[in-house]
């Protein structure tokens, strides 16, 4: 009997213990990076902070903490990925083995006699920052106390539940490197301090998700040759980085009495730059405030002003334009500014689809466009009329084709032929208009060199020698090695 009661007690207590452990937040404190500035590295400020935070989390009831030693191997692998020695696949899928859900990452640097300490709690599966806090203060202990309130005392399951539910539909951004863009900037340590600060502050905003920089750094610290005057991280051409939709890069220019930080937000899907910003700063002591202000702008832009379009087409691989701006090819998942837009989907051999589109912020709009095959019947009819010498009839049918198929790719052929027919019957003014429409509407069309040729011919026919010569020179310069340029050299001897 006694044994039964003891067993029952054991089962109940074990269950209670397991239940209490299950509801705890499982985390590990990673080593705080103190190598940004030599002073903090020499002081081993990172060790001090990570030990301090580990102690705080261990003493809190809400947490189940794995010692940093237990995750050492993972951290080492992460470092080797960061150094470009191994592929980042090495750290993928390893999270489960760590038996934690969250990492606490941090950075510490010193500037102008003060410490900049930034800490963030990161979801180990998604690498998104769940909560972060940073401070600029006189001592490391002061920093620990300030951060403790946000990241220890007020970090619980209820916060996590709210935060992670918000994350589902929010746009995701990653902060990549900021470059030193003039010689004076190269002599400072502003870029690294600022970038870490910005990463942390962005992570504290609720309407956007920020991929922890410790992860994005794994992709940018490879042995990449460095270009001057070209701002890009070539290794970020990958588009599948932790669901990241945007990347933020920037640069510093330091003048003797002002610091300028420029930044840009680029859409990962097509490399399109969606925002360019510039800020003047009087001194590095204002960095944290400027970062907060920039983060505000980013949240406003991505969180309140942008929604998502999920677009497919039948057939796929069609070109997509929103308000006449190229967006890529279907299928596509792209962020779009909120409001009313015109969506254009084009594919060679198919009628162009033009529809209106309303985008709500933080909402995914799904669309599937079925493209109708384009009939070349009218085009062939016009060719036949042209061949038979019926210029007027051909022009009429070309116009019909142009009107019917709007801006389908094939329309450039119709415009091109129509222009030549007009020259043939000496209606030079209309020919100029037609060729002009072609080169403006289809700047990349295969017929564009020929269109300029037609344009030059039409100007000449009109007696506008100046424009005719300018257009001829443009052909020779721009399309110098083409057959059209050869023709121009041979025939345009004015």
């Amino acid at each position: 009997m006694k044994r039964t009661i003891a067993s029952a007690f054991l089962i109940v207590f074990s269950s209670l213990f397991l239940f209490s452990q299950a509801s705890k937040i499982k985390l590990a404190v990673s080593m705080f990076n103190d190598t940004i500035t030599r002073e903090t590295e020499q002081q081993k400020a990172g060790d001090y902070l990570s030990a301090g935070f580990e102690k705080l989390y261990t003493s809190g009831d809400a947490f189940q903490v794995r010692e940093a030693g237990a995750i050492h191997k993972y951290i080492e692998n992460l470092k080797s990925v960061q150094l470009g020695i191994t592929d980042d696949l090495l750290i993928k899928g390893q999270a489960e083995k760590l038996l934690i859900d969250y990492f606490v990452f941090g950075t510490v640097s010193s500037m102008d006699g003060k410490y900049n300490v930034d800490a963030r709690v990161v979801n180990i599966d998604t690498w998104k920052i769940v909560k972060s806090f940073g401070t600029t203060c006189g001592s490391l202990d002061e920093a620990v106390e300030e951060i403790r309130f946000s990241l220890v005392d007020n970090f619980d399951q209820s916060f996590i539940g709210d935060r992670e539910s918000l994350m589902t539909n929010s746009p995701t951004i990653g902060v990549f490197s900021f470059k030193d863009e003039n010689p004076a900037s190269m002599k400072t340590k502003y870029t690294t301090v600022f970038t870490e600060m910005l990463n942390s502050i962005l992570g504290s905003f609720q309407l956007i998700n920020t991929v922890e920089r410790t992860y994005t750094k794994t992709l940018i610290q490879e042995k990449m040759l460095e270009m001057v005057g070209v701002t890009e991280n070539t290794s970020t051409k990958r588009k599948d980085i932790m669901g990241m939709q945007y990347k933020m890069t920037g640069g510093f220019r330091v003048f003797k009495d002002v610091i300028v930080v420029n930044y840009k937000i680029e859409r990962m899907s097509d490399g399109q730059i969606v925002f360019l910003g510039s800020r003047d700063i009087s001194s590095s002591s204002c960095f944290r405030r400027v970062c907060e202000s920039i983060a505000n702008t980013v949240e406003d832009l991505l969180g309140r002003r942008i929604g998502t379009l999920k677009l497919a087409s039948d057939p796929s691989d069609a070109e997509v334009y929103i308000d006449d701006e190229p967006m890529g090819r279907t299928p596509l998942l792209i962020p779009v500014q909120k409001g009313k837009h015109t969506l254009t989907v084009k594919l060679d051999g198919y009628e162009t689809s033009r529809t209106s589109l309303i985008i709500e912020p933080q909402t995914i709009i799904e669309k599937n466009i079925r493209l109708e095959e384009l009939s070349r019947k009218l085009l062939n009819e016009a060719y036949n009329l042209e061949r038979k010498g019926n210029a007027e009839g051909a022009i009429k049918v070309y116009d019909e084709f142009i009107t019917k198929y709007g801006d389908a790719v094939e329309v450039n052929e119709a415009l091109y032929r129509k222009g030549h027919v007009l020259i043939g019957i000496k209606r030079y003014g209309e020919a100029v208009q037609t060729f002009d429409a072609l080169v403006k509407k289809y700047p990349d069309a295969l017929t564009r060199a020929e269109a300029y040729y037609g344009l030059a011919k039409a100007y000449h026919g009109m007696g506008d020698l100046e424009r005719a010569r300018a257009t001829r020179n443009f052909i020779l310069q721009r399309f110098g090695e083409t057959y059209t340029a050869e023709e121009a050299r041979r025939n345009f001897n004015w």
Partner: protein
Amino acid sequence: MRRAVFLIMVSAVAAGMFSCKKTDAELREEALRADQKITEQSEINKEIRRLKDQLAGAQDDYNRSQIYSQIAGLYDQKGDVNSTMKNAREAIKFQPNEYYSHYILGKAYLDAGRYGESEMELLTSISLKNDFALSHYELGNLYYKKISYSNAISEYKKAVKLDEQCYEAYNNMGVVLGLTGKAKEAVKILNKGIAVKPDFPVFYKNLGIIYDTILKKRNDAVENYNKYLELRPDCPERKTVEAWIELIGR
């Protein structure tokens, strides 16, 4: 009565204090505005303001264009792409045949990722003045971004032929040569750049990478990495480069 008056006064002061309490965001904005005022006094911003004031008294379109072009140039120095574009466009509006405005606009378009427009502007700039090295240099950068490496090399070559001091063109040409597997040529070009500007750190980092990853010349790689760190002791990737050196030594 006195007590009532006193209470009213205390309440009013308290209410006033309460209503004056500013949020963190408001305080931050206030501090940023104050900082902005300080930055307005910087030399480059004062010069921009002086030029903007001159616009009102501009004698003709040519003069107006010159001023806009100078303003665009100053914004370009600051790296403010939006303002550069805006002012360069104005300059071109008043004087379409000024090579420098087209160059500045082309460069800004390139920074903004608008490659088609950038190419058009840079080619226009070159057609107006084909011996301006920087237009060729930026066109080289554009072709590099468009992964048109042979065109990029050709433009960089033109840039350094026109201006031997255009050391950045040597660097970028070295990078493109390295990327296309012409490591020995890349080393040669980067060393030419060093002869022009020996204190430019990026040359050494790139040489280090080429020796390390392509030519497998360990000693040369370490030497160049060390030189890079010597010239840029606080560079953001200091630890990374130190680790590369350590790896080579293993």
